[in-house]
């Protein structure tokens, strides 16, 4: 509706109510975003070792040739591999809790506890739990393995050193993540451009692989593609902790609410048709939960891409060998430890653009696929 003079009479009062928030919004959000974009094109250094200059795109070209940047981008993706496990776990918990069992509130409270108390204190707790020499996790592993050795003569298992190790669980998980990412990109692009999508994705894959060969050279020691790197390491430790924190958290509560909104008639109809539990889940529950799942996945992506800062700062300092440094922690070290404000702003804008693109694609195509 077009604004009429009658609808305009609220203009000045509205400005009055809006003013405090709008002022803060302009000073601390809108202004800084634009300012940050501007300084991404400068060599600004808080320690002023060099005279301030506009350097155009040089920060960005430097970034794409920066081996560390690519490793940290990979780390960020690797740490997001726990996401599907956590989401599936949340769904399972929600289904179990939605059966009108006794004591649901108690369970819900216990499951939500890690999310609610998450923060530095929990990271410090897990750092102690993971301690390879004194921590209870390895003490338990060693006790069990020692007992098996005495009783059954099984060889002693060497307990992982967790946060001190560059190993990773599957070794090839990186490649797996890469393949999954490409497949996802293909699925999305196919909706937009049909069969050309395959060509584009193949070209992107070739470009990326070529780029890695030239710059990072698939640094085996850090990325962990060799057989010696298979095992549990720092990144997996952080993933396990992340699943523990998130599994009974907000996602579970969202699923719980969504489950209570599934019309009961659908279940009755499925029962009449003689559908088993698995068939009922696949054909009734899962489609009905699709909007919730979609929301959770989008939010997890946004959160995951900017995640890993507290873990890196509190538990590992981004190590060993940079394997737990995520993009946000990289920005932090560049901006607030090395004071290269310009370069850090450039990295933060690349992160912003990635998040923006992922969200946009998710909304545009995910929402379309959902509406059946």
């Amino acid at each position, binding site marked *: 509706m077009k604004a009429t003079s009658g609808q305009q009479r609220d203009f000045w009062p509205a400005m009055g109510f809006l003013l405090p928030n709008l002022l803060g919004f302009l000073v601390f*959000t809108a202004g800084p975003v634009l300012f940050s974009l501007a300084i991404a094109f400068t060599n600004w250094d808080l320690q002023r070792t060099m005279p301030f200059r506009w350097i155009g795109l040089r920060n960005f070209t430097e970034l794409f040739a920066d081996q560390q940047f690519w490793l940290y981008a990979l780390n960020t993706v690797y740490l997001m591999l726990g996401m599907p496990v956590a989401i599936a776990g949340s769904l399972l918990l929600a289904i179990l809790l939605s059966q009108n069992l006794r004591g649901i509130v108690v369970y819900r409270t216990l499951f939500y506890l890690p999310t609610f*108390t998450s923060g530095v204190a929990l990271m410090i707790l897990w750092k102690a739990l993971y301690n390879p020499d004194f921590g209870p996790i390895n003490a338990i592993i060693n006790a069990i393995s020692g007992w098996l050795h005495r009783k059954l003569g099984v060889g002693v298992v060497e307990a992982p050193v967790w946060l001190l190790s560059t190993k990773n669980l599957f070794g090839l998980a990186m490649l797996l993540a890469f393949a999954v990412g490409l497949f996802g990109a293909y699925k999305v692009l196919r909706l937009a451009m049909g069969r050309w999508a395959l060509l584009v994705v193949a070209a992107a894959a070739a470009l990326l692989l070529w780029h890695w060969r030239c710059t990072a050279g698939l640094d085996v020691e850090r990325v962990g593609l060799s057989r010696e790197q298979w095992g549990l390491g720092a990144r997996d430790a952080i993933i396990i902790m992340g699943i523990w924190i998130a599994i009974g958290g907000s996602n579970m509560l969202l699923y719980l609410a969504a489950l209570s909104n599934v019309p009961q008639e659908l279940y009755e109809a499925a029962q009449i048709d003689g559908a088993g539990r698995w068939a009922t889940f696949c054909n009734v529950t899962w489609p009905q939960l699709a909007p919730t799942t979609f929301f959770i996945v989008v939010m997890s992506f946004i959160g995951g891409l900017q995640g890993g800062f507290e873990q890196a700062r509190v538990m590992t300092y981004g190590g060993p060998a940079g394997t737990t440094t995520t993009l946000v922690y990289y920005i932090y070290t560049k901006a607030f430890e090395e004071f290269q404000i310009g370069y850090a702003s450039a990295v933060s804008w690349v992160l912003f653009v990635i998040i923006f693109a992922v969200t946009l694609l998710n909304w545009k195509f995910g929402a379309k696929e959902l509406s059946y």
Partner: protein
Amino acid sequence: MLMANVVDKPLTFRAWWYRTGRFGASHAVLALLAATMLVPFLWMVLASFKPLVEVEQLNPFPTRWQPHNYPKVFEQIPFARYYFNSLFVAAWVTFLQCLTSSMAAYAFARLRWRGRDHVFRLYLATLMIPGVVTMIPNYTLMVKLGLLDSYAGLIVPAAFSAFGTFLLRQFMLTIPPSLDEAAAIDGASHWQIFWDVILPLARPGLITLAIFTFLGNYGSFFWPLILIKSEHLRTLPIGMLYFDTMYGRQTNLIMAASVMNIIPLIILFIVSQKFIVKGIQLGAVKG
């Protein structure tokens, strides 16, 4: 089985499973998972009462309970000061954010003005911006304003929230418009309508926002980490971080500090569970 007496037909496994067994199985799975959630917390509490040598041992309970680990934390670091700083900053941010957000939400939900929806969409769009993008310019702004290493630097930038505005707007849209129309006919000013009519009705939304804002700022890490240099201005997370860095081998004391750190959260959670669950279902996700 006693249950079998009630039914005529012999109780098949399938029927038993449907009636009793699957609930038992669900309880078993849930209890196992609940234990997984709880064990790290239990270890933390028990470790906080142990002498240092026993922390490394597997026995779950301390042979010698050592409650004086707790006062010892206060001797080694100004823990009470950290507590106060965290509560002080979080309380101020919560108060200011609720005030500015509810005022803006009133303008977006209850008043009509040109460009309203455009401005609101702009607000929504900024929710996607990663915090780290605005962090760097805001830091330089604090340097310029001389607010580095001060309470004001911790409080003021956090006092405005697009998310809070969004949440409260959604809440206020559900309040019937006839209420403020009636008040307007009675000659109430905009401020009176806002303060006496809308705010009381939006109370559940306000409480939800207050809880999440308090929670987020009590545990806030990145911003205080870069902003605060002096020891007496450190908030709990920063104090904990440096305590862990300096006295990392005194696991029992670190755990005592951790327990004290999360106790207010657990109390808050138990008191406000109803609002939290509802708030999350409204889309308020702890970040």
